[in-house]
């Protein structure tokens, strides 16, 4: 099965549990299980090749220039982890089916679990480190969902937040480290990076990259001092804990350290950072674990401790230590998942996880006891179980590793940690299962059904088998993984009995010491409780609170809700940047002669300046300001026409009409006066800013206009090819529908979206309590006694076909003469709006049922279909075609596919404009307003004139 499919399967399958939950919990669990099983089988099909030492790859170059490739590869290391993730995932799915209660939303659980599983498989099979980073972040996010699965528990939510904060921050650091690594090597492909050990370790950026990547690994794998999140994540349901903290999430950091081992390990920096962090974590985790009364907390800290052990081994940087680390990864996954599941069973049956309230369960739960006993003994490192072998190997490596020249620190602390490890493992057995039966269990403990203990039982069988036949079962796998981790071929030989070595003495000492420690547990606990120790959660909460405080102050200080202030900052910033740009550039001499201005131009300019001045003077009177701004718009349109831009003039004047109507409609509901509330000082300051801005912009455009282009323009190309290539003589129109058709296509979509936004806003406002206000609203200005006057109604009826004819004319001539879809659309829209104005919106809308959403959609689709038509001729999107047709009585005329595109533009514009205006009109609707007749006073009618008010 392709690696793409294996990585994608959990994601694809994630929808099924959520869907199938309607068919029952078994269906939901089965769909999750089948998906995982399928991926697992797919993976196992590669097993023979992997065990032969081959590497399976799947490559998809997405953006090779940026190094963004969806490349996957599977070697021994990836195979081991993918196998653990999918294999244990399968067992967890089975276990969770029986663990979760009826109240828990099981579909959600399996969906989250599969998302998480997919992200993990992605991490371990990615070849591209950028892809790996994405999966890495996905595990943080999906584990957040899993840890916080019991949303009603505050500890669950807090634990999930803490896990996300810590691992997410580590992930961010790792992004930096990975990018540095890619920069050093010049490739983001792992397989390439792994070949460049010398280049990476010689680079001055080695240390920063190492620190950043390790920050990601240490946070994920809960290494000291980031270990504190893991125990808090125990608020999750036990299947989640068992999955995340035995085989997957926390192993992701370990995986990455192993993956990067060939290029990062072997330096003193690596040794002192990684081995030391691992050593400290191992000791700290083991000691705390012994004094935890919560079963899951005990297991959580033991996980921390064992992760420290693996990290330390990887940190040693020797091949033998790496082999020990790999083997312990396998062993830890098996016994720890089994232990978590057995703890879950105890919790499920006895209704408590408090060791102080348990004991004597072996009589009541013999099966669970057997499973827990084997797994715990393996964790303690008792022969002949698998935990014994890897612990021996660890002690062996520790015994001949010095730290800063001291040969005793590492072996001593390793034995110390092993002692505590044995002690808490024994405590798990002794204080929970052994001892006399009690009468005061909160529940009625008994062995659960087969479904619940099947998964842990399977795992402990593995624990025993790997322990007894390590050479047969585990050795080939460990061999290929070791090859992958070291990128060499070290000799792997696993066996139960190594002879009488220092490691054996250390091991015996640890086990005996562990037993003694358990016997003295009561006294040790008293000492432990008397010791002052920092509570990680309190420190974490304080740091977060401080950060939140700073962020709040920053945000509140900058973002204080005053839009005026934001505008001011923006304007000042733009002015400042422009000044700096101007000041640092050079201004060559003017090259163009200034053109003579005719009297018409001076007149227009004069009108514009006076109107603008009056707006500033009288903007408090809003209606007056609106009329004055219409004058400005008119002058601008005339100026466009005067300055050889007829298309712009037509567009500007029709947009002007629509805009003013829209603003008038809105003003109907807004206050008619702006209060004079701004102090004079502020007004003067604003005037000064505005003057500076205006002078700057005016000066800039003047400077531009009196100089020629600094470089050649592409306009000549458009002029030369408009007719030849586009079949039209109106170059502006040809640019819009042909040369830059894609821009126009985007633009009509934007226009359509704007109209939809307006529609949605209207729906939202009218759906709120505002509607009651609008329905009972009394107009605040005296209303016209005859809102639908006869003259206007008759005139607009006559004008409608004329206006539509003009629109059609403008549309058709657009390709060759000023006009086109935009302008035609606006003219047509105005023709319809006139009907609204004459007879009232209600009357007109009843007679003309056009679904404007559909018009917009049709416009966009027609434009898109026209563009796609080019594909059938193997041409790029929106390539236009044109030709000439000669029909007998008519003159020869031209057709172009661009006209069809322009039709799309036309429809989109009509729909958008009318939808916007229609939405506004709906605000004015009041019951009984829609008049029965087109005009209120009609001499041809006998009935009493009904005069109603409408806007």
């Amino acid at each position, binding site marked *: 099965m392709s690696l793409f499919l294996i990585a994608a399967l959990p994601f694809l399958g994630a929808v099924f549990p959520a869907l199938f939950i309607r068919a029952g919990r078994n269906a939901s669990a089965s769909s999750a299980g089948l998906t995982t099983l399928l991926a697992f089988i797919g993976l196992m099909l590669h097993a023979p090749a992997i065990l032969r030492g081959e590497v399976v790859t799947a490559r998809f170059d997405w953006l090779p220039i940026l190094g963004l490739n969806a490349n996957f590869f599977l070697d021994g290391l990836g195979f081991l982890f993918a196998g653990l993730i999918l294999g244990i995932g399968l067992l967890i799915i089975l276990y969770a089916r029986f663990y979760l209660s009826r109240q828990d939303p099981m579909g959600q659980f399996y969906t989250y679990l599969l998302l998480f599983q997919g992200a993990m498989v992605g991490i371990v099979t990615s070849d591209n480190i950028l892809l790996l980073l994405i999966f890495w972040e996905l595990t943080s996010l999906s584990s957040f969902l899993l840890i916080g699965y019991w949303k009603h528990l505050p500890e669950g939510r807090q634990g999930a937040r803490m896990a996300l904060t810590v691992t997410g921050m580590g992930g961010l650091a790792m992004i930096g480290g990975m990018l540095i690594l890619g920069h050093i090597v010049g490739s983001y492909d792992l397989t390439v990076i792994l070949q460049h050990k010398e280049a990476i370790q010689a680079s001055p950026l080695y240390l920063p990259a190492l620190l950043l990547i390790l920050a990601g690994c240490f946070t994920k794998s809960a290494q000291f001092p980031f270990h504190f999140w893991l125990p808090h994540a125990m608020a999750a349901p036990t299947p989640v804990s068992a999955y995340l903290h035995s085989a997957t999430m926390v192993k992701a950091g370990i995986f990455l350290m192993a993956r990067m081992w060939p290029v990062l390990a072997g330096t003193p920096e690596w040794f002192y950072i990684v081995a030391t962090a691992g050593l400290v974590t191992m000791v700290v985790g083991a000691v705390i674990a012994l004094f935890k009364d919560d079963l899951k907390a005990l297991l959580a800290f033991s996980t921390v401790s064992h992760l420290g052990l693996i990290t330390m081994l990887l940190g040693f940087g020797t091949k033998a230590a790496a082999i020990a680390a790999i083997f312990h990864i396998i062993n830890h996954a098996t016994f720890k998942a089994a232990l978590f599941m057995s703890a879950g069973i105890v919790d499920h049956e006895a209704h408590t996880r408090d060791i102080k309230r348990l004991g004597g369960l072996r009589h009541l739960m013999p099966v669970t006891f057997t499973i827990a006993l084997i797994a715990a003994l393996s964790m303690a490192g008792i022969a002949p179980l698998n935990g014994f072998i890897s612990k021996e190997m660890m002690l062996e490596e520790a015994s001949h590793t010095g730290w800063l020249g001291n040969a005793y620190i590492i072996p001593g602390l390793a034995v110390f940690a092993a002692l505590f490890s044995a002690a808490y493992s024994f405590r798990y057995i002794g204080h929970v299962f052994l001892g006399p039966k009690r009468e005061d269990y909160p529940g009625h403990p008994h062995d659960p059904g087969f479904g619940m203990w099947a998964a842990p039982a399977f795992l402990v069988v593995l624990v025993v088998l790997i322990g007894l036949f390590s050479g047969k079962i585990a050795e080939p796998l460990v061999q290929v993984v070791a090859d992958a981790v070291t990128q060499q071929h070290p000799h792997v030989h696993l066996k139960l009995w190594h002879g009488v070595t220092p490691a054996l003495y250390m091991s015996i000492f640890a086990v005996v010491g562990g037993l003694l420690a358990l016997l003295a547990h009561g006294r040790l606990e008293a000492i432990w409780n008397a010791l002052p120790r920092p509570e990680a959660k309190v420190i974490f909460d304080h740091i977060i609170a401080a950060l939140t405080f700073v962020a709040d102050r920053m945000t509140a200080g900058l973002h204080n809700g*005053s*839009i005026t202030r934001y505008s001011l900052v923006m304007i000042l910033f733009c002015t400042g940047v422009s000044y700096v740009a101007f000041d640092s550039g050079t201004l060559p001499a003017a090259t163009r002669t200034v053109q003579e201005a005719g009297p018409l131009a001076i007149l227009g300019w004069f009108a514009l300046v006076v109107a603008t001045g009056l707006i500033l003077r009288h903007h408090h009177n809003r209606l007056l*300001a609106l009329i004055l*701004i219409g004058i400005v718009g008119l002058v601008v349109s005339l100026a466009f026409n005067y300055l050889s831009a007829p*298309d712009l003039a037509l567009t500007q004047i029709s947009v002007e009409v629509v805009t003013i109507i*829209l603003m008038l409609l809105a003003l109907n509901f807004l206050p008619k006066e702006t209060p004079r509330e701004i102090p004079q000082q502020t007004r003067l*300051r604003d005037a000064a800013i*505005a003057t500076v801005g205006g002078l700057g*912009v005016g000066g800039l455009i003047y400077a531009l206009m009196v100089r020629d282009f600094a470089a050649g323009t592409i306009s000549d190309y*458009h002029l030369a090819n408009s007719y030849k290539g586009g079949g039209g003589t109106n170059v502006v129109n040809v640019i819009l529908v042909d040369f830059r058709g894609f821009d126009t296509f985007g633009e009509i979509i934007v226009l359509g979206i704007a109209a939809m936004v307006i529609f949605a806003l209207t729906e939202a406002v009218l759906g709120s309590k505002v509607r009651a206000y609008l329905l009972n609203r009394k107009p605040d200005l005296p209303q016209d006694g005859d809102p639908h006057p006869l003259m206007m109604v008759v005139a607009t009826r006559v004008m409608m076909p004329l206006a539509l004819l003009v629109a059609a004319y403008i549309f058709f001539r657009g390709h060759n003469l000023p006009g086109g879809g935009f302008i035609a659309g606006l003219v047509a829209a105005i023709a319809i709006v006139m009907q609204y104005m004459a007879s009232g919106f209600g009357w007109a809308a009843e007679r003309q049922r056009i679904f404007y959403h559909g018009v917009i959609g049709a416009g966009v689709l027609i434009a898109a279909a026209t563009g796609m038509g080019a594909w059938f001729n193997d041409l790029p999107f929106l390539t236009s075609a044109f030709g000439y047709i000669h029909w007998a009585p008519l003159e020869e005329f031209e057709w172009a596919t661009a006209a069809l595109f322009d039709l799309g533009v036309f429809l989109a514009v009509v729909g958008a404009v009318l939808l916007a205006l229609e939405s506004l009109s709906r605000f004015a609707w009041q019951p009984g307003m829609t008049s029965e007749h087109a005009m209120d006073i009609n001499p041809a009618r006998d009935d009493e004139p009904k005069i109603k008010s409408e806007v």
Partner: protein
Amino acid sequence: MEILVASAVGIMTAAGIYLILRRRTFPVILGLSMLTYGVNVFLFATGRLAIGAPPILNKYADVPYTDPLPQALVLTAIVISFGMTAVVVMIALGAYLSSRTDDINMDDAATETGEDA
């Protein structure tokens, strides 16, 4: 001619900026419209000014044409700015109807920055 266009652009921009710095929605919308005029004419003028030279190809005579590219750009800009104005007007209207005030600043901000708003 150039000085007229340049000064008109400057005046419209200045009026736009001044109105945008007001505190009520309506003048701010008017200011945006003024700024739109200014910016559109500015963009148009980057193609340099020409009188009587529209970019309509003449098959029969070799006549000068003005720069068509800024015109196409500005045509798009005019239509888009209509869409923008319409959306802003609706937001302003919805805000006024919902809160019964057309002040664009939040209350606490208004008291805090009352003197510079």
